């Protein structure tokens, strides 16, 4: 077992087996995978058009969503001047759906964003710190888990009074516990990986490790989960409005419209179903999109 003292160039030069192509970059690769996924592309296109319609509602809907007339109550789909019909007070359904998309999307997305920031922070803290901090945060969240989400939202809304901002606040509180749980789980997994230990061994401080190594590895999973929560949030906020706890009439909002058109279900069933269809399509699209993103952002499903 003599020591190899001379450096054999044949041994010392490593075989360059893999082509040394510069990588396209993480986000570029994600984009390329998304482009190949037709379903995700389609639902993203639908969502984008809904968002564009919501933003430019005055352009798409010429009618005033609040102006009613007893003369034009409950017209069927295809009526002249009201191609999607009118509601029980003669307001144009198309105009109300367009403007309603604004409130529904706001009520759907804002709580998710708020809970993403607060829940994500708590979850990553709990996951990284472990021990007592983890126990305190997670057990507090477990208390919230004891209530079904819609019941908790109704209770908080009932406590705060109705109105859009209170509904958003209630839903944010409802979404924080699952967000904490998801981010805690992925952070705990990431924390025990070798590269976090390697980063500690190379003198990286805790804050830098969280910011640089942990966040970049857990953000994908948390974002995908947040996207899937948007659909739930739209449905829950529509539910709150339906119960009279969220947006107040005569504001156009899909859940509220569904509630008021409910009485006309035997007169104009198709018109009455339209807000429900909007809620269904939007939440479905968010769900499918989050599925697509999960696939595209996973390094292991690569290629």
């Amino acid at each position, binding site marked *: *077992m003599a*020591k*190899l003292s001379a*450096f*054999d160039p044949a*041994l*010392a*030069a*490593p*075989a*360059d*087996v*893999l082509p*040394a*192509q*510069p*990588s396209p970059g*993480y986000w570029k690769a994600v984009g390329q995978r998304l482009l190949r996924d037709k379903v995700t592309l389609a639902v993203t296109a639908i969502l984008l058009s809904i968002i564009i319609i919501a933003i430019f509602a005055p352009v798409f809907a010429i009618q005033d969503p609040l102006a009613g007339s007893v003369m034009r109550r409950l017209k069927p789909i295809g009526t002249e001047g009201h191609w999607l019909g009118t509601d029980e007070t003669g307001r144009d359904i198309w105009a109300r759906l367009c403007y309603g998309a604004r409130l529904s999307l706001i009520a759907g997305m804002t709580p998710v964003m708020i809970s993403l920031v607060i829940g994500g922070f708590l979850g990553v803290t709990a996951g990284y710190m472990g*021990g007592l901090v983890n126990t305190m945060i997670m057990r507090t969240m477990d208390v919230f888990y004891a209530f079904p989400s819609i019941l908790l939202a109704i209770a908080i809304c009932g406590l705060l009074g109705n109105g859009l901002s209170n509904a958003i606040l209630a839903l944010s509180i409802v979404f924080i516990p699952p967000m904490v749980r998801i981010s805690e789980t992925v952070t705990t997994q990431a924390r025990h*990986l*070798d*590269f976090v*230990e*390697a*980063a*500690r*061994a*190379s*003198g*990286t*401080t805790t804050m*830098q490790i969280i910011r*640089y*190594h942990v966040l*970049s*590895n857990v953000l994908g999973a948390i974002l995908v989960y947040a996207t899937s929560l948007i659909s739930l949030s739209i449905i829950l906020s529509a539910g709150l409005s339906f119960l009279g706890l969220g947006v107040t009439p005569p504001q156009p909002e899909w859940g509220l419209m569904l509630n008021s058109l409910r009485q006309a279900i035997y007169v104009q069933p198709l018109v009455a179903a339209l807000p429900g269809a909007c809620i269904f399509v939007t939440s479905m699209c968010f769900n499918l999109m989050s599925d697509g993103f999960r696939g595209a952002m996973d*390094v292991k499903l*690569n290629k």
Partner: protein
Amino acid sequence: MLPETDKIIEVEDLTVEFRKREGSLFAVNGVNFSLARGEVLTILGESGSGKSVTLKAMMGLLPGYAHVTGQARLNGKNILALPPAELTKVRGSEVSMIFQEPMAALDPVYTIGEQIAEAIVQHEGISKSAAMKRALELLERVSIPSAARRLKNYPHEMSGGMRQRAMIALALACSPTVLLADEPTTALDVTVQIQILLLLRQLSEELGMAVVFVTHDIGVAAEISDRIAVMYAGRFVETGTVREVMRERRHPYTAGLLASTVHGGLRGQDLETIPGAPPSLAALPPGCAFAPRCRSVQETCRSGQPPVVDFGPGTMVRCVRAVPQMAFA
């Protein structure tokens, strides 16, 4: 002994005890060694003998329930007693570590260049572009071909050997004086293994780095090290130069290890095994930890710790059968 100033790392009476609710686990039970610049020490031992724990203790990487005593002096200051902020400064810049599994030890979402540059920026506060330039030099230093392009590669786009080279480059980023290597070649195939060993050896000579290398592979130990320490149940049972340990085999455990390994000297013979299994670290026997498996066990072995028999500087055997006079005869 060499004068103290020559030693850049001195470990004295290092013990690690894992305190858990179910009881204590004694993973490292009094380890002593010291290293000079450019010297390579291999800690040889089987799984669970405390090799990796020794390294992690020296980096302060053990979890809170680990109770570490003793001293690990790096350039005169005791790492084990440093406050966390000081420890962070020492890690990476003075003592650095490479890991067994290069895929897991590199962050999958950053390119190799970004990771190395990030470490340099943190310690030296230089600009990102200057750090990138240094990262390129480091990749060239660990002989990664077409280094400039590799800089922009993600870990999963590289082969195992290449990743381990990148890992070494990352560990060398802030020119540490001591490198701790935790089985860095175990996950690699044999031809790549020897390349990595040669590279480490070369770097230690060129940069004057002391290297503590941990392995269970005797062949690897013989290849890379100046000195070998054979570890069993948290203690060094035999230390010495490669030649001494390989040839003299003063401790029965060393003899057993060599007899159970394929090498040229054994041509035509059957391989032997060491009967039994290592003792549980939660309940170590009162006497010699190897006694239950030892062929030449005596009554004194079971009752008390065997004596440490010195054979000159850095060479010792922890066995009742080792007789110092025989060595000099």
